[in-house]
């Protein structure tokens, strides 16, 4: 069996674990649906009917983010409970193991956000269905980037519950300083320029923006936004991969992280 087929096999096993964690699915689905169908509708009444259409693509991206960060939880658990020692007895290179984890995280994010996209299509019919399909590989890259970021935080969380501190801080800051809930113009108008810039280049903002413009509003695909999305996501995937690889190599050499 080649290294690639072993990588695929491990990624598939890890990916199936995502669907076996039923409580996680319940958390994600209930949060995303209530954000979309309750919060979105009520804020739509407060701000204007167009707001619901604005928010729905953002909620799809937040769902992708939440599902992809589950990779961090699994890496953290594997490190904490010593399962990682077993992983290293598998006939696969450390790089392959890291790659399998990041890819399965990406798959979890894309499958979950795909489901949300389907639900969103019922409440807000998309004008550019073809664009939505074209965007899926880009969303997959974003999902691997977020999985990588979560893996990075899991790898550097040596102490007790520190991973959850990082995970919570990451989620709140990335979602709050983004254009998921408010437009870039609103942020630029009312908040200092550095915050507006962070929000503009936040991968969640980039993804929410292309989903809104191209998939839901039927505009042409913005190649520069897609380029920015790749440029923001790939380094995150690489960062997480390298951090996890270093931890695994340290365990291989010293027997502990």
């Amino acid at each position, binding site marked *: 069996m080649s290294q690639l087929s072993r990588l695929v096999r491990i990624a598939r096993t890890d990916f199936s674990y995502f669907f076996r964690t039923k409580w996680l699915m319940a*958390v994600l689905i*209930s*949060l995303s649906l209530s954000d979309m169908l309750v919060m979105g509708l009520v804020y739509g009444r*407060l701000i204007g009917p167009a707001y619901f259409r604005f928010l729905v693509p953002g909620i799809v991206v937040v769902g992708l983010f939440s599902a992809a960060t589950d990779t961090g939880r699994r890496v953290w658990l594997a490190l904490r409970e010593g399962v990682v020692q077993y992983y290293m007895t598998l006939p696969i290179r450390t790089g392959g193991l890291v790659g399998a984890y990041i890819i399965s995280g990406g798959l979890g994010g894309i499958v979950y956000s795909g489901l949300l996209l389907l639900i969103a299509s019922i409440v807000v019919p998309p004008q550019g269905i073809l664009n939505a399909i074209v965007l899926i590989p880009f969303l997959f890259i974003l999902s691997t980037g977020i999985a990588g970021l979560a893996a990075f935080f899991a790898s550097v969380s040596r102490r007790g519950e520190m991973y959850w*501190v990082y995970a*919570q801080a990451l989620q709140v800051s990335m979602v709050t300083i983004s254009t998921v809930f*408010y437009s870039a113009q609103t942020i630029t108008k009312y908040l200092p320029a550095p915050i507006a810039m962070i929000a503009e280049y936040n991968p969640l903002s980039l993804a929410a923006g292309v989903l809104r413009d191209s998939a839901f509003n039927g505009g042409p695909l913005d190649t520069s936004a897609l380029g920015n999305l790749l440029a923001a996501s790939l380094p995150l995937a690489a960062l997480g991969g390298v951090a996890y690889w270093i931890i695994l190599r340290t365990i291989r050499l010293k027997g502990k992280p």
Partner: protein
Amino acid sequence: MNRVLTLAAYNVKILLSQRTWFFLAWALFGLQIAVFGSLMSKLVSTAVPNYFFFYAIGLMVITVFDSGADVGRHFVEHAHEGELPYFLSLPISRGGFLAAQAIYGVANTMIKVLPPLIGVLWFVGDLTLQGVVFALISMFLLGLGITGIMVSMSFIAFKSVDIYSAFLAGLSALIVRFSTVFYPLIFMPNFYSPISVFSPLTYGADLTRWVLGFDPNFLLNPILAAAVVTAVAVGTMSLSARIVDKVIEGVKAA
């Protein structure tokens, strides 16, 4: 009484050792208020004047809810890590054990809520001693009610922690989104508002806003809110006392 306080002091000491969590909670509160709160208040200002203050209190109520849920999780973890039989073997009544848990919950809530409350009231220029005291009483009662609900539900966890986590996640999503934590009841669609009146957070949030002087036109009747918050606190704490008394024996460690 002394034994209850000793057990509570032990729990609170462990709580105080987790300083990172408190700093994180305050920092994230600050971030959400500064970014989400200020931007959304600009967007909804025509419908809800002073939405910034409305949202700040809602965020504090979410903190109270999370702290209550924390107590339930703490209780369940004790059970599944095998510590519960040890605690139950101590020379302390089941009611005393529950009271120690409740004190832990109240301490957790107050530490997380007090600095943001003072900070927000100072920022909006409405910082008064009586405002702080009455808001804390209102959130304290709400916190007791949430703790009671979470401990009452913990018997589910004695069968399966996964089901308990899923149940709580679903419950918290519904209880927060369908409440008046983020938006006044009068703006809710007709098909959602009947669900909203079943959420204790609706009453806790509106009562706290009322004692802090928010426009009552956007709030529930304060007498009704105070009555419901008190009834939920008393009712669920009594229920959890019965559960601790009757169901807790024979819990298997994971």
